[in-house]
């Protein structure tokens, strides 16, 4: 398990990393940090989905402190990792259900296809293993077979799934589930919701309704609103978070699909913009593939100190043209 944590996260992140790390090596091995080099570095950050603002800030800090001096790629990576970790450190907050609430109600939201249901299955396992009594609610009453999908997870991880009839009202279902979870003494109630694009007013209103209706039973619910975010998402993630936060008061993020070739650099931009806690990352389709979010591991993984350097000559241009990791 301990091995699993780092090796899996690293395996996932190192792919995100190879391109960025390799690129930095190619650009900076024994070179002057001049304008051209800074521009290339900015490009590399942008290509990692860090977002123009964060990329520009990193470049600015290099420009003022190291401009014109000879730097090695190792120095660059250390500085860059430190900068990224600095942005991420405040948001690396684990998700801890509050034992005062019985149950602690977590509403899981996000756009379509980003891994909400899978994440809930993984969370049920994780917190179940910690000895909590976890219940899940199949609140995606819209998508075909979403209920069945969660039920399979329930069987897998041994946690009860509360479901209604197809096309049932999600708010009513959440209300009943909360009542039942309270009666049965659950510690954690994970509510799945249908995926929805943040720019669909009516669907976002539905989400607000789920919250309103639950509050008729427990006015402190939901205690967490978790936004699930796909690591392959580009700059639109910022708008997603902004709108979900505004309309349903998101309390934390979970970033999924970090085991792919996507860099997940948008997380840095999100931390910078919103400062919302990043609770966990998803690194695979199995029940155990959920990890607490660690700023340092993420930053190091993104910058890649252990990545073998590519040849300092000749590779630059090619890299600028974006070889896949």
């Amino acid at each position, binding site marked *: 398990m301990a091995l699993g944590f780092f090796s899996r996260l690293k395996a996932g992140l190192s792919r995100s990393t190879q391109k960025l790390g390799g690129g930095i090596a190619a650009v900076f091995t024994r070179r002057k940090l001049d304008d051209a080099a800074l521009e290339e570095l900015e490009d590399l950050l942008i290509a990692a989905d860090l977002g123009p603002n964060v990329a520009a800030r990193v470049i600015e800090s290099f420009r003022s402190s190291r401009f014109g001096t000879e730097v090695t790629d190792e120095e660059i990576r250390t500085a860059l990792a430190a900068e990224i970790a600095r942005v991420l450190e405040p948001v690396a907050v684990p998700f801890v259900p509050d034992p005062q609430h019985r149950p602690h109600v977590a509403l899981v939201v996000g756009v379509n*296809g980003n891994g909400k249901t899978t994440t809930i299955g993984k969370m049920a396992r994780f917190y179940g293993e910690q000895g909590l009594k976890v219940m899940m609610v199949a609140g995606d009453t819209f998508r075909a077979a979403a209920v069945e999908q969660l039920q399979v997870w329930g069987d897998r991880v041994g946690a009860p799934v509360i479901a209604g009839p197809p096309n049932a009202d999600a708010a009513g279902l959440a209300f009943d589930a909360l009542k039942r979870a309270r009666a049965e003494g659950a510690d954690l109630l994970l509510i799945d919701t249908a995926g929805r694009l943040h*720019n669909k007013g009516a669907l976002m209103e539905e989400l607000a309704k789920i919250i309103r209706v639950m509050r008729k039973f427990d006015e402190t619910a939901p205690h967490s609103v978790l936004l699930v975010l796909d690591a392959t998402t580009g700059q639109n993630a910022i708008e997603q978070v902004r709108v979900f936060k505004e309309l349903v008061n998101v309390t934390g993020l979970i970033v999924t*699909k970090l085991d792919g*070739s996507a860099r997940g650099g948008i997380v840095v931009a999100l931390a910078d913009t919103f400062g919302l806690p990043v609770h966990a990352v998803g690194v695979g389709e199995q029940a155990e593939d959920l990890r607490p979010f660690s700023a340092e591991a993420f930053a190091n993984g993104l910058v890649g100190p252990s990545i073998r350097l590519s040849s300092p000559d000749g590779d630059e241009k090619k890299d600028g043209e974006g070889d*896949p990791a």
Partner: protein
Amino acid sequence: MFAQWRDIFWGERPLFEALSGKLSGVFDGLAKRGALSEADVAEAMREVRLAMLDADVALPVVKDFVTKVRERAVGHEVLDSISPGQAVAKIVNDALIDALGGAGAVPLNLNAVPPVPILMVGLQGSGKTTTSGKIALRLATRERKKVLLASLDTQRPAAQLQLQQLAERAGVPSLPIVPGQTPVEIARRAMDTGRREGFDVVILDTAGRLSIDEALMNEVREIRAETSPAETLLVVDAMTGQDAVNTARAFNEAVGVTGVVMTRMDGDARGGAALSMRAVTGAPIKLTGSGEKLDALEEFHPERVAGRILGLGDIAGLVEKAADTLDHEESEKIALKMMQGKFDLDDYAAQIRQIAKMGSLSGILDMLPGMGKVKQALGDKDLDTSVLKRHQAIISSMTRAERKTPAIIKASRKKRIAAGSGSTVQDVNRLLKQFDDMSTMMKRINKLGMKGLMRQGMSALMPKGPKPPGGRPFG
């Protein structure tokens, strides 16, 4: 309608500058006459580059594009009839449309011996299964094909059940689920069933897979070898970031992508992944998904996506969205009144309600030309729907006669209305002034027509008076 938003969100402040937007702002600074110099173009290209990166076009694709366009633009003669900004904008826009595949939609290739296999591939959660259902419905209804849906997704829980349920909704048969079969076995069974039962098309929906997952990529290679699909469609989420190039390259190398489907085009992502996909695979973007309903599948329109990528907005998309969301009868009534110049405050209130229904205001702004900059200038806090609510309150405190003929609202009526709606006389004045401006603009829209509006952008709607000194800044 566009005019209204201006007035609602920015009150009486002049919007001309801001509306010229991200690109047009730079282009306005270009030399006014003669050939475009290298420096002029370089400045504009920096903005184009940023706009494209903001839209998630992959960096190498952006670089390539900018280089080509720069070559094309430098030395370009600027005719007297258009501004240098318009000239460069046209070059950029044309090049982008070109890069996205040029005019005209590319249909699905069904030229093969039936049953024609269509293979759906992509990352997890990109929308393959929903898209499979949509394509099945489209082929069954529009082209009267006999379509079989088969799910080869043995990875995700209940994925096969999902496709079966979608098939039922679409009224299309699906391959019976046999637990324990491998994806390759299911593919074989699907093709056998297709042949035996005389299907025209068999859609093979595969499990989502990461491009770096060797085992699963091999599996999809095997499926392809087994079925020789006429189309191998890569399904891509429009929100995808820079990773689009990696995904496109990996899938293309593994299975030879013949077409791309962009999903979630109904979101407010600017969809730069479309350009990356096209550039890397060389395969045309054949279809776009724009909603959760099974008929929400459309042909790809390069010119719309080009505008979206450049941050010039997607007016056509906005109009469609409006048409989807708004109450048709009410809209038509209002439109007619506008044409006749009889638009009154009741209609305004009705429209406020409809705008509220369209969802996130910033999402709407993103679809409007030049609004990116406005949004930036405003920051988040000013995109506030409370103005809408205040306007509604003020209008509800008016008598019917006042709403029909706002001109009769003088000092004492204003006081009463302000008191009744919990606002101030200034608020009432502001609303009346905006309503007045709006009516003026509607007359202009009528004169211009939709085509003119799209050609000239929103600046055509702005009051023609002298520009305010220095062009007061926004936000």
